[in-house]
């Protein structure tokens, strides 16, 4: 049973990675009601930007916050240039643009920074592993960072005027305009914030999985599963979902289906949740009477 406990702890540690990316996905969904396929690539690009800053000699935290600012700007620019023009187009067009974005950002990152694996530093001391070596100080630290981001995001949406306006703009843009909300800017803001959160996720993930342009492809899928499990419009649920997927993946891999099908576990969770309980395990069910 010792093995089981270890698997669970290790799963939580990996789950922290998924949770941070899931949070970014939920963020963009809350703000824009889009599921951004290029989220992983954008986060990876941000992490490379941070890496370049650190390579150039900047202290870690300067690079950290600098990257957040730059990523925010990138998110806003992407929304303005690529998403805005097709805002009223069919979903197919939108999905097409996301795929195009994925191709462009993913390949451009590889082109600029190369595909060799790079080391990304952690701000947390790594000499004393915890829980019998199952969790590194970095994993604990990054989980705390994720929870801090979650708290910030939650407070922002729950208590601030801007947060409420962003949710309103996403739910019902026409009505949002009628209360004077500048919907276009809310969407751009949402993209910016999602990109910034993605950057944080990338910077927390990279010290563990090492930095390369394809770092996020697998993670993104688990993160999607986590986000859906928690309810795609529920940040806290997404974080919880991310951790759950980490644990589930380990348990299923170690005891049920074998490690060759871990990705398929994520696929099964995605399909299962969407079909059986589309609002997620922790999501609110939206009732509407017409």
């Amino acid at each position: 049973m010792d093995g089981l406990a270890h698997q669970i702890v290790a799963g939580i540690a990996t789950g922290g990675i998924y949770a941070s990316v899931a949070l970014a996905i939920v963020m963009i969904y809350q703000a824009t009601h889009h599921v951004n396929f290029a989220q992983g690539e954008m986060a990876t690009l941000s992490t490379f930007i941070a890496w370049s800053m650190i390579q150039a000699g900047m202290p870690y935290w300067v690079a950290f916050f600098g990257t957040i600012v730059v990523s925010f700007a990138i998110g806003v620019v992407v929304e303005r240039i690529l998403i805005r023009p097709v805002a009223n187009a069919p979903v197919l067009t939108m999905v097409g643009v996301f795929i195009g974005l994925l191709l462009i950002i993913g390949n451009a990152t590889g082109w600029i920074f190369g595909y060799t694996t790079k080391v990304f530093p952690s701000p947390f001391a790594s000499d004393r592993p915890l829980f019998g070596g199952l969790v590194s100080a970095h994993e604990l630290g990054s989980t705390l960072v994720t929870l801090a981001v979650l708290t910030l995001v939650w407070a922002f949406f729950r208590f601030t005027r801007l947060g409420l306006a962003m949710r309103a703009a996403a739910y019902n843009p026409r009505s949002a305009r009628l209360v004077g909300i500048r919907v276009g800017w809310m969407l751009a803001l949402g993209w910016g914030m999602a990109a910034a959160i993605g950057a944080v996720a990338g910077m927390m993930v990279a010290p563990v999985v090492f930095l390369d342009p394809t770092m996020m492809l697998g993670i993104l899928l688990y993160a999607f599963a986590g986000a859906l499990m928690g309810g795609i419009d529920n940040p806290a649920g997404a974080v919880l979902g991310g951790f759950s997927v980490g644990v589930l993946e380990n348990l299923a891999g170690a005891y049920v289906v074998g490690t060759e099908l871990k990705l398929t576990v994520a696929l099964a969770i995605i399909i299962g949740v969407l079909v059986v309980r589309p609002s997620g395990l922790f999501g609110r069910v939206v009732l509407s009477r017409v």
Partner: protein
Amino acid sequence: MTTSRRILLAGSAALLAAPRLVRAEESPGVTATELRIGTTYALSGPASAYSLIPKCVTAMVKRLNEEGGIAGRKINFLVYDDAYSPPRTLEQTRRLVEQDKVAFLFNNLGTPTNSAIHRYVNQRKVPHLFLATGADKWAEPKQYPWTIGWQPSYRTEAQIYAKHILEQKPEAKIGLLYQNDDFGKDYVNGVKDVLGPRFDAMVKTASHEATDATVDSQLVSLQAAGCDALVCGIIPRFASQAIRRVFDLNWKPMMFMSNVSVSGSVVIEPAGKEKAIGLITSDYRKDQSDPSWADDPGMKEWRDFMARYIPDGELGDNNYTYAYGVGLTLFQVLRQCGNDFSRGNVMKQATSLQPMALPTLLPGIMVSTSPDNYRPIRHMQLQRWDGRGWVRFGKVIEGAEV
């Protein structure tokens, strides 16, 4: 110039044979002034980290052409992108063979990709030389006489580890961590070769996917199974993770790492130099980050070449040392061809290389081939990480004898 002298000496026996004078125009890809050679590589996409290899070979070809080329001919080295997709490899290979009419193919990248063209090139009788893959299947001269590998296969490497474990810890419980693809599976096969029927009782396997975030879960399983030896057939990214995690878990197995993932600067340093102490691998190349090769003439030759031809190249990347070795092997074949670059003769010379040392290979490791030996490099030496560098121990081991 040291290069050519070294190779001249090594290949003197072949040079003594009188060149058969065949009109060059009769062979595809060969004119009076040009020799055309092609390859396919992943120049784009995830596997394009390896694109440094053709980049290096192209630079070597440039140097060779500046020095006068081969038998009065300039070499034209064509590199096409297959994005590591087998169907694309076939398309690009057919383009090279049928449209560009290359004399032969050299150092194509990847196992699935080369598998897709394996039969095509053999049907067409196009030499398919020194592939950039460590799979075991390229040494079948009877069925596929036109295809030949270069580096020792992963399977051979795994055999060496398994044998070493049996010598040191006959009652070991072996954990085998491998990536679930052709590369990783070869480690399973190699260990199986040595252990035979004892495999199931002695070995606990755990695979991971290239898309996985971490290999923590697998390591936890293997540790929980009571393994006291660990063989890892994994790529650098996961290697660093595994070294670090095994240390953190306070698990002290006899740990073996695929020589794909033992670069001091790429793998060991990220994991922590002290955390890797005791790690064992077997290699045929010199690790350029190892200070003991600082004054080695072979590595100096390589560094001079890099400084002149690829000044912006990342010297810590061992793709460059690999490329330098395989490139020199090609040039030796071309020199042995004399003036006859017909496909038949190219293949004949490629499969009759007298034992030859190369500047970027470990001392004592020779490249040699014969018509029934399609494994140019069969030797490796075990080495152990001592906290600062790799320390070789034991004698040079010939994989095929294991």
